[in-house]
């Protein structure tokens, strides 16, 4: 139990995907220009993250290991994610068009994002149990959401700052991320995994 909590904290804060694992950057920089998009993405992402973590765990343990197909994990995981996202897409469109209208666009973006793939891969690599995989997935999702929202609020303020021409846009965004990462180093050493 405690271990699960630690796993969650570690995944969300200490080894935050963006700030210490350098993953999901494309989306991170892509959707944080506006708060709305950042929030939309956070929600969608966390959900997809947890579920695809669960799915891939099942497939991995139930099919790939027995059949000694682990070398196909890249293909299969991306297949799972893509398939799931597709399914979610259609279902959402049917069940709640309103929600789909809000979050549909992000679903499309997610498939080719590296975090979403990293989570199952790491789960497989670390040989986490099912529950562990879930809490790792959740932690990662929450951590990513946190990163997105902080970043969005900061970038909205940068809108109003007069930044030297050649640093406007991505360069300053990278530097901000660097500074946040520097701050997040404060969490390092809280937990040993």
């Amino acid at each position, binding site marked *: 139990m405690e271990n699960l909590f630690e796993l969650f904290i570690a995944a969300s804060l200490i080894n935050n995907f963006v700030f210490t694992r350098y993953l999901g950057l494309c989306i991170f920089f892509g959707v944080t220009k506006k*708060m709305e998009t950042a929030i939309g993405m956070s929600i969608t992402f966390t959900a997809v993250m947890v579920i695809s973590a669960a799915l891939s765990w099942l497939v991995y343990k139930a099919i790939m290991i027995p059949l000694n197909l682990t070398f196909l994990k890249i293909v299969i995981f991306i297949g799972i994610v893509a398939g799931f996202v597709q399914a979610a897409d259609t279902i959402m469109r049917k069940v709640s068009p309103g929600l789909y209208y809000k979050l549909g666009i992000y679903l499309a973006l997610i498939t080719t994002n590296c975090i979403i793939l990293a989570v199952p891969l790491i789960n497989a690599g670390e040989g986490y149990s099912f529950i562990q995989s879930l809490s790792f997935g959740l932690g990662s999702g929450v951590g990513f959401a946190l990163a997105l*929202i*902080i970043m969005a*609020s*900061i970038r*909205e*303020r*940068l809108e*109003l*700052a*007069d*930044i*030297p021409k050649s*640093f406007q846009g991505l360069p*300053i965004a990278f*530097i*901000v991320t660097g*500074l*946040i990462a*520097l*701050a*997040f*180093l*404060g*969490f*390092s*050493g*809280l937990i040993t995994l």
Partner: protein
Amino acid sequence: MEAIKKEETIRELIVSVSPHVKDEETVSRIMWSVNISLLPAFVMGAYFFGPKAVFVTALCIITSVLSEYLVQKALKKKVTISDGSAFLTGLLLGMNLPSSLWSIKPFTIHIPIIGSIVAIIITKQLFGGLGYNIFNPALIGRAFLLISFPKAMTIWTEPSAAFVALDAKTTATPLGILKEEGLNKLIEVFGDKLHLYSQLLLGHRAGSIGETSAIALLIGAAFLLYRRYITWHIPISFLGTAALLAWIFGGKDPHTGKLLFFAGDPIIHLLSGGMLLGAFFMATDYVTCPSVRRGQILFGIGCGALTMLIRLKGGYPEGVMFAILLMNCFAPLIDRKMRSKVFGFVKKKETGK
């Protein structure tokens, strides 16, 4: 109307928008006053850590002001080094460094310089200069140095009175001892508890140049509060939260080393490390803290909580710096969510879209 025209007595009427009178408070006045208010603490630092302390701080101030000047020239902006904010950044950075950095062998004199450059150029000017930066420049400067030069940045020299101490011997900071060897050891080092407190108050202990003397810092803080340059909101919520948590979770069973609830010693935690300097002079930086009072209280609580989290559970003896920087990340979010209450506004709170 010609008749009247003749009797006109002034040539050029100045036309400008209301209001036509303004308070005499200016940015530079504020910044320089804060510089002044840090003087006592700095003098105590110089007193305990000797000339090195002065050199290190001076180096930071010079570099900061110089870099600000150069960047503003390079960007063809108005040069504003006279407003004292760059000076203040330099001063605070210097006061946050160990005096031991002034040493030829091993050569570490470049360290304060790098720190100041990072503080002014990367953290402040790249964002547009005074008023636009998201993070506290001085603290980023320090954090940058701590990570880049972990060894040099954790060499603390024994305080030795009376402005001397050219090469004093090194030792550990109270918090370091507290973390590594525990409370009893700390008390043992200082003799008895009362002596410990008095030394902490006076500032006769290892630590960063400007952080050690509690009294001096409190004098400066009182001045700022009196002149209304800072308000109580951040410092009090910061220190209050920290003290509370220190009391609840700070205690250890001397034998088993197990956590002992409600047995911590808040006073030690408040008086040691950068707690006071941080709470009164750095968390309160207008630019990098929320600007609505309610938000500031939340900000302070966050700082206090994170500080204690890092001090008690983290891998690092001191947490003030990281705590403030972490809360800097959240300041824009807090500002966004916590607006001031509009006059006559009833119920159904406004939610920032």
